């Protein structure tokens, strides 16, 4: 049984009349990949800022690794590593200087630092960038250093605030593989906000937040089963036959796609019309469909 490493209870935060976070309660289990989704202004960044001790809350409780974040006097900070939306590295300094000065803030020096550096530079593939000035690196290279910076002190929780936005697919894959490897090897908890729905689909647990409140939560499968139907893609049949089914359909390049409520309904249909369903596949709805169904909004910036 996994422990709850982050517990947020009845969190409230308002800015004037605007309720940025409205009675939010979430639990993140140790070692899981937790996806926190919402459109801009939904309350994600406010929640993260409160979680990291950057912002005071109006009411509610926040526990990090069993410690009350408010009364802990910052003692839990070593448990958290954060990768911000924008790089916070010193652009005029070299990669090595950046990592060295950040490691010192956690009391990591000399041999211990060298060991960490070797491990992270190999994992995130930046051994050849150590002497380069950060300002001269590409977006993807900077991101790798940002992640290394957040991992220098072996945090129990890695908070990734839209870490792959604007990166090329190859770099996104590299970063994502590294994060997943870390999560598995070190049993690190990853708290992710992202615009890329396929990244959220990899999560163990997903919370969708809208106007400061939880709009839906569960594992990707649970959410798909609850908020989207199944799709049956039928090949090698004509439109006249599909029309006979009497349910909405969509013509795609060389097939027809039928939307059904769930897998049971799909099975029922296939058994009833075996002459139509000779070549077919059943797929679950996508995370985008869930988001759209739950919030009535589309996440921007990501790919479907």
């Amino acid at each position: 049984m996994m422990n709850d490493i982050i517990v947020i209870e009845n969190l409230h935060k308002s800015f004037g009349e605007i309720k940025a976070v409205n009675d939010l309660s979430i639990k993140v289990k140790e070692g899981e990949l937790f996806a926190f989704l919402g459109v801009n202004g939904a309350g994600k960044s406010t929640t993260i800022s409160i979680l990291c001790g950057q912002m005071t809350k109006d009411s509610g409780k926040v526990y990090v690794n069993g410690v009350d974040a408010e009364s802990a006097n910052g003692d839990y900070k070593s448990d958290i590593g954060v990768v911000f939306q924008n790089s916070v590295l010193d652009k005029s300094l070299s990669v090595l200087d950046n990592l060295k000065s950040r490691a010192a803030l956690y009391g990591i020096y000399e041999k211990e630092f060298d060991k960490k550096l070797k491990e992270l530079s190999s994992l995130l593939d930046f051994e050849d960038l150590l002497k380069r000035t950060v300002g001269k690196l590409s977006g993807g290279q900077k991101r790798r250093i940002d992640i290394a910076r957040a991992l220098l002190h072996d945090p129990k929780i890695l908070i990734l605030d839209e870490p792959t936005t604007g990166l090329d697919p190859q770099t996104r894959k590299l970063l994502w593989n590294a994060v997943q490897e870390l999560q598995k090897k070190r049993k690190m908890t990853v708290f992710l906000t992202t615009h890329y729905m396929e990244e959220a689909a990899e999560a163990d647990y997903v919370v969708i937040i809208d106007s400061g409140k939880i709009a839906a939560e569960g594992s990707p499968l649970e959410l798909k089963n609850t908020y989207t139907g199944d799709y049956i893609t039928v090949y090698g049949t004509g439109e006249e036959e599909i029309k006979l089914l009497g349910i909405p359909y969509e013509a795609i390049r060389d097939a027809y796609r039928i939307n059904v409520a769930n897998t049971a309904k799909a099975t029922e249909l296939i058994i009833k019309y075996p002459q139509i369903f000779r070549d077919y596949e059943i797929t679950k709805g996508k995370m985008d469909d869930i988001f759209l169904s739950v919030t009535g909004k589309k996440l921007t910036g990501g790919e479907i």
Partner: protein
Amino acid sequence: MKTLRILIYRNIKLFFKDKGMFFTSLITPLILLVLYSTFLGNVFEESFRAAIPKGIAIDDKILSGIVGGQLLSSLLAVSCVTVAFCSNMLMVQDKVTGAAKDISMTPVKGSSLALGYYIASFCSTFIISIIAMTAGLIYISAIGWYISFADVMYILLDVFLLVMFGTALSSVINYFLSTQGQISAVGSIVSSVYGFICGAYMPISSSGEGVQKLVLFLPGTYATSLLRNHCMSGAFDEFEKSGIPSEIVKGMRDSVDCNLYFFDEKVSIYAMYLVLSLSVAVLISAYVIINILAIRKKKK
């Protein structure tokens, strides 16, 4: 302690590597050099020459030594403060780039951060000021050297105190800044105004009576006067030895702010040191209190 050392190293390195910040800090001293080399130097030399009674022969070297001393004292009076302001802008720059947010998420104490900015800014400014002082002294030795070893030591002390003052003042002011626009605005105001109000561009004695009275309430004025005394006293003494009446020399000292009068009362050198030291102590205390209040506010 090790963390503080690495933080200081990071801050100093960032200042010297950030060409924009580094060169901005040198604008005011450069303006001063241009002013002196184009006309101020000649204007002052001519005015001193005009004040010498007819029949007394004065070595040109002494005149050059006085003007050189005036240039060096003006240069140090502005650079110790304007460079401190620019180097201390790093604390604002860190807020703009998000580095401050990142650093505050680490277990490092707020007091270490504040101290890190202060010491780094002090070191960067002191390094530049010492380079400027050395270059200035070499220049004076070439045109007319009348500065005693004791005066050189006093100049060093003046620079130390003035850098402490500039760093403390900039720490208090910069603490409240948080945007790039504010950095530019404060940087421009300090660079352009400080040279005038401390009496570096033009002696305070040449300003109107109201302005003279006003600037006597500013600690920077006394720092300029201390530097003037220690950079120019030897040459003025040489004037007296050459037979110029002491009343005339006193008038010359008054005209370049070696002597300051607080409501007709001459301010002694010791009083000037006291004003400057107390200002440093008050500003550092203010900086400490601001940081303590900020940490307490965060905890609430």
